C-alpha cells in the first residue's frame, strides 16, 4: 500500500481498554464437536431481539436469552446431507412478519427455515459454489443477499423464492466474494468484498422494478427474469489482501483484511464516471493477532460497538463512533469456535 499522504492520515485507536463497559461471560454452550461459524441475533423483529441463531456443521440452532443470563435452546435443524457445513446464517421474515432463518454454506444451497412453523420454507439452488455470507435488508426483511465463492452476489426474495438480481459480470468480483452488507438506510445500496482484495459498492436503483416484481410473481421462480448487475458504482482498493468482512457505518464502510486492523473509510465517488473514485481512510481500529482470514466482525443494533475475535481467542470490542476510536473492552475467551461475538441489545 502506498504511503499515506499528508492530510489524509487516519485516526488510529489506542489499544488501552477504556473499561467503559464490563462484559461478563454468562454462559458457555457447546454444540457437538464441529466449529460454529456464525452467531446472529435477530435485529429485524423487536419481539425476538433476545433470540439468536448459530450455525455449525450441518446444524442450525436457535436460542433465547432469558433473564439472569439464562440461555434457552429453542429449536434445532439438521441438514440431511452430512457433508453440509453452514458458514453463515441471517434472520429474515416474510411480509406478514413470520420469522425466517436463512442459512448457507459449503453446498451452495440457501436454506430458508420458517421458524414459527419449525419447517423448511424453501431451498434456493443457484449459486455455483459455497456461500460465504448472507445478510438481510433491514428495511425490507424479505430481501436477502448472499455472497458466494462463485464470484457473485445474489439478491433473493425469501418469500417467493426468487433470485432477483445477480451482481457479477464485467465489473464484478474476480475471486470469491467473502462478505456483503446492505446500506442501513439507502435501500438500493449494497457493499461486497472478497478475495480479489476489493470492496465494491453496488446500486440496484435501476433494477428496483424487478425487486418489486418479485413480490407479486406468481409463476415459477425459475421463470423470473433475473437480471445481471454487471457494474458496481464504486470499486475501492483499500486493502492489499483478501477483504473478509465489510459493514456499512452510516455512509462509511468498515472493512478488514489480514492487516490486524479494521478500517473505516469514506467512499468518494466521482459523479460522472461510475466505478471510479477514491477511498478516504478516516479511522483505524487495531486488532492484534488478527492476520488470518475469515475472521469477521459484528456490530450491535445501534452501531455503537463492533466486536471481533482474533487468532488467540481474544475479543476486542471497539466503540465505533468515537473519534479517535475507543476500545471498550478486551475479553479473553477460551473458545476459539465462536468467531462472531454475540451482540446483545441488553
Amino acid at each position, binding site marked *: 500500500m*502506498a504511503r499515506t499522504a*499528508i492530510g489524509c492520515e487516519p485516526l488510529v485507536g489506542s489499544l488501552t481498554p477504556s473499561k467503559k463497559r464490563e462484559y461478563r461471560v*454468562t454462559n458457555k454452550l457447546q454444540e457437538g464437536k464441529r466449529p460454529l461459524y456464525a452467531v446472529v441475533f435477530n435485529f429485524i423483529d423487536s419481539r425476538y431481539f433476545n433470540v439468536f441463531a448459530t450455525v455449525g456443521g450441518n446444524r442450525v440452532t436457535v436460542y433465547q436469552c432469558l433473564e*439472569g443470563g439464562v440461555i434457552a*435452546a429453542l429449536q434445532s435443524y439438521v441438514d440431511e446431507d452430512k457433508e453440509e457445513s453452514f458458514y453463515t446464517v441471517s434472520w429474515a421474515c416474510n411480509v406478514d412478519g413470520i*420469522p425466517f432463518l436463512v442459512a448457507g454454506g459449503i453446498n451452495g444451497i440457501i436454506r430458508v427455515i420458517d421458524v414459527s412453523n419449525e419447517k423448511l420454507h424453501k431451498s434456493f439452488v443457484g449459486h455455483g459454489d459455497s456461500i460465504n455470507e448472507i445478510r438481510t435488508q433491514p428495511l425490507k426483511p424479505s430481501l436477502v443477499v448472499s455472497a458466494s465463492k462463485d464470484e457473485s452476489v445474489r439478491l433473493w426474495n425469501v418469500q417467493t423464492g426468487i433470485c432477483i438480481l445477480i451482481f457479477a459480470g464485467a465489473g464484478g468480483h474476480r475471486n470469491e466474494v467473502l462478505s456483503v452488507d446492505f446500506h442501513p438506510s439507502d435501500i438500493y445500496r449494497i457493499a461486497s468484498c472478497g478475495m480479489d482484495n476489493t470492496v465494491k459498492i453496488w446500486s440496484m436503483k435501476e433494477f428496483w422494478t424487478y425487486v418489486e416484481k418479485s413480490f407479486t410473481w406468481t409463476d415459477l421462480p425459475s421463470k423470473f427474469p433475473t437480471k445481471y448487475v454487471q457494474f458496481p458504482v464504486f470499486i475501492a482498493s483499500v486493502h492489499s489482501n483478501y477483504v473478509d468482512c465489510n459493514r456499512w457505518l452510516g455512509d462509511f464502510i468498515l472493512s478488514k483484511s489480514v492487516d490486524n486492523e479494521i478500517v473505516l473509510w469514506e467512499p468518494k465517488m466521482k459523479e460522472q464516471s461510475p466505478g471510479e473514485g477514491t477511498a478516504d481512510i*478516516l479511522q483505524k481500529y487495531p486488532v492484534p493477532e488478527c492476520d488470518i*482470514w475469515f475472521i469477521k466482525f459484528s456490530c450491535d443494533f445501534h452501531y455503537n460497538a463492533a466486536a471481533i475475535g482474533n487468532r488467540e481467542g481474544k475479543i476486542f470490542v471497539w466503540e465505533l*463512533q468515537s473519534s479517535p476510536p475507543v476500545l471498550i473492552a478486551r475479553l479473553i475467551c477460551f473458545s476459539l469456535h465462536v468467531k462472531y461475538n454475540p451482540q446483545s441489545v441488553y
Partner: protein
Amino acid sequence: MVSRASDSSSKSRQSNDGLGNLTYKLNQLKKQVQAERVVSVKDKIEKNRKKIENDISQLLSTTSRKSVIFAMDNGFGNMPLCKYSGFPQGLGDRDYVNSHEVVLSTSSKLSHVQKIPPYTTWIFLDKNQRMAEDQSVVGRRRIYYDQHGSEALVCSDSEEDIIEPEEEKHEFSDGEDRILWTVFEEHGLGEEVINAVSQFIGIATSEVQDRYSTLKEKYDGKNLKEFEDAGHERGIALEKSLSAALDSFDNLFCRRCLLFDCRLHGCSQTLINPSEKQPYWSEYEDDRKPCSNHCYLQAFSLSLSLSAAVQDTVEGSAGNISSIITNTEGTLLHCNAEVPGAHSDIMAGERCNSKRVLPVTSEAVDSSEVAIGNENTDTSMQSLGKRKALELNDSVKVFDEIEESLNKKQKKLLPLDVLTASSDGIPRPDTKSGHHVGAINDNELQMTSKNTIKKSVSAKVVSHNNIEHNIMDGAKDVNKEPEMKQSFSKGELPEGVLCSSEWKPIEKELYLKGVEIFGRNSCLIARNLLSGLKTCMEVSTYMRDSSSSMPHKSVAPSSFLEETVKVDTDYAEQEMPARPRLLRRRGRARKLKYSWKSAGHPSIWKRIADGKNQSCKQYTPCGCQSMCGKQCPCLHNGTCCEKYCGCSKSCKNRFRGCHCAKSQCRSRQCPCFAAGRECDPDVCRNCWVSCGDGSLGEPPKRGDGQCGNMRLLLRQQQRILLAKSDVAGWGAFLKNSVSKNDYLGEYTGELISHREADKRGKIYDRANSSFLFDLNDQYVLDAYRKGDKLKFANHSSNPNCFAKVMLVAGDHRVGIFAKEHIEASEELFYDYRYGPDQAPAWARKPEGSKREDSSVSQGRAKKHQSH
C-alpha cells in the same frame, strides 16, 4: 556568467539562513494540516453518527410496528418462536461458567436437496468480446490459500511481475498541495526549497515542480476558468464543429459490426476509408417529386401557378416568365446527360474569362463537382446558371467590387445590375433570411441566363417571396410580414451579408458530408442530414453559392482530390505483389478445380496445399489506397486483404470469395471452405441470403441453393441445453437431432492475449477448470466468466463434435460442428486436443486406443495449453 555565479552564491547564503526556517515552517504547516485533518475526521464521524441515529430510529420503528400488529392479531402469548424445546442453560451469577453441551430433545430435518455441480458465475455472450484493460491478471499478485491449513501462499509466479515497478504518479492530497503552495509562494522556487519540500513530502523533485506549475495554473486560471465554464454550459451542440460532434461517432462506432461501443473490435479504431467510393444513391430525375413544401422543385411548380396570379402586378412579362420557367425546367430535365461535359466546358470558359473579383474557386472544386455531379437537376441547374450564379453571389457578397466588375462584363450581364439592385432593395426586406435572397436570385439568374428580360426580374422576386412563405394571397401582405423579421436578421448580419453567415459551421460541414454521400442532391441532403435545420430550398441555394464562391468550404471535393492524388502516388509507388507462379501451379495441381481468379491468396493456398495446421493469423484491415504494395500490413502479416481494407477490390492480396454454384459451399471444393472461411455475401458471387418470408422480394437467384457456409455469420445454430454431465460437472446437450457436419453453435468468450492466457491458465489449473481456447496467433478465447453454454461441453477422445476456427467477416470464430449424426438430448463432446501430458486424468485416452492426431487435426481447433 559572473553575475549568475554571484547570484547563486548569494542565494545559497540566503537559503542557508532560511533552510532551518524552512524546515520549521514545513513542520509547522504539516502540524497544522494534520490538526485540521483530525478535526475534519471528527466532524465527519459526528455527522455520520447523527445520520446513523436517524437510521436506527427508523429501523426501530419498522421492527417494532410489526410486532404490535402481530401481537394484536395473535396475542403475545402465541409468539411462535418461544417454545422451549431444550432446557434453560446455566445461571448468570457465577464468575466462571462451565461449558454445557446443548441437548435438544428434537431437531427438525432439512430434507435433502440435490446439489448442482460447481461453476463460476458467468455472463452469456453471443459474440466474442475483447478483454477490458482492467481485467488483466498479468502483473497482478494472486494469493492462494491451502484448502486445509489456510496458510497463505502468495503466488506471484513470474519474474515479470517483479520487474513491473509501480511507477504510479503520486497523487497530491489537498494538504500537500497547501504545503507546496505556501512554501513556494513564500520562499520562491529555489533549488534548496524544492529539495526540502520534495524530501519532506517524500517524492521526486520533478513531480513537486510539476505539481507547483499545475497548481499555479489552477489558481491563476481559476477566475478565467469559471468564466469559461459558464460560457461553455450555455453553448449548444450546434455550435460545435462537425468533427467534434462526430468524435464520438468516429471513436465509438464500429464500422465492421455496424454498432456503437463494439466490444469485439474496441473503440478508437483506426478509420479506414475505402479507396473506392460507392456511387451515389440517386433517383431518376423524371420520377423526382418535390420532397417538401420547401423543395427547390416546388419552387418551380409554385412559381408556375403563381405567375398567373402575379400577372397583374407585373408589367406583362409574366407570360414570358412562365414560359421561361417551363423552358428551363424542360432543358434542365433533358440536358441531364450532357451536363457534366457541358458544365466543365462552361467552367473552363469561365476560368478564362475570370477578370472577376471572384476568389479563384479552385479548379479542384469545379472539376470534382463535375465528377460528383451525377444526374441531379441541381447540378444541371447550377451548370446552366453557373456563370451568372457566380457573379451574382459575389455581387451580393462583395457588392461594390462586383459592381465594377459587372460593368466590365458582357452585355448579357447587364440585367445583373438590376438584379443586384433589386436584391438590395426588394428581396432583402422581403425575405425571412438571407438564404432566400440567394435562392431567389439564383432562380432568377437561371432564368435570365436564357432570356435577359429585365422586367421579369422584379416580378419573379415577388413570386418567389410568395413561394417562400407559401402565401398565395397578394404580394403586398407578404412584403409586410418579412419586414419585421428583417430588423432581427439585420442585427445579426450587420453588413447584410447573405446566406453563408446564417449557416452554422456544423451545418456547413453536414452539408459537405451530404455532398459526399448523396452527391448534389439537395432533397436528400436536406432530408437526411439537415432535417429541422435547413430546407431543401436553402440547401440548394447554398449549394450554388458554395460551389462558386467559397473554395475554403469545399472540404469534400478537396479531400476527394487529395485522395485521387494519393491514389496516383500509390500507383506510382506500387509494386505488383510478386505472385509466385510456381505456387499457383502447385495449388492448382491439387485437384482443386476452381480457377485462380476465384481463390484467395498464395499464403492460404500454401496452407491448404501443405495441409499444415498453422495457427491462424489475426486480421487487421490495412489502410492502403488502391493496390497494396509491399508495405501493406496485411501482406506483411500473411493475411488476405478483406472487405474492410482500404484497398480496392482489385487488390491482388484480396480474398476473392468463391463462385460456387451448386455445391452450397459445404466441401473443400469451395475455396472459402477450404481456406477455413465462411462465405461472405459481400464478396462471394453466388452466396446470398434471402430476407424474411420473401415478401420483401428476393435477390435475383444466382446459385442453385442457399450457401451452406455462412452458418456462423447467420447464427444458424442448434438449441443447446445445459445439464449435469454424465462424465464430470456440467455438460452441454443437444435439443434436436442433427446430422453429420451440422453446425451446432459458437464457442464464445473473452479475447485475451497469449501472455494473459498463460497467466490465467495457471490460475485456472488450480481450480482444475479451464475454458481457454486457442483462436489465432494473437488471441485466445477465455470463456471462464463470459461465454455460452457450449463452454460446458466436455472433452472426449472419442467425441461426437469437433471445433473449427473459421474466419467470418474478418474475425476468427470457433464453431462447434457435429462429427457424426447426433440424436436429440445427447451430450456433446469434442476433443480438446490436449498435449500428451496436459490432459486431466479422466480425459486421458486408454492405452492402445491412440489415434493419429494429425490425421484429423487439419482445421480442427484446440483448447489452449498454458506453458
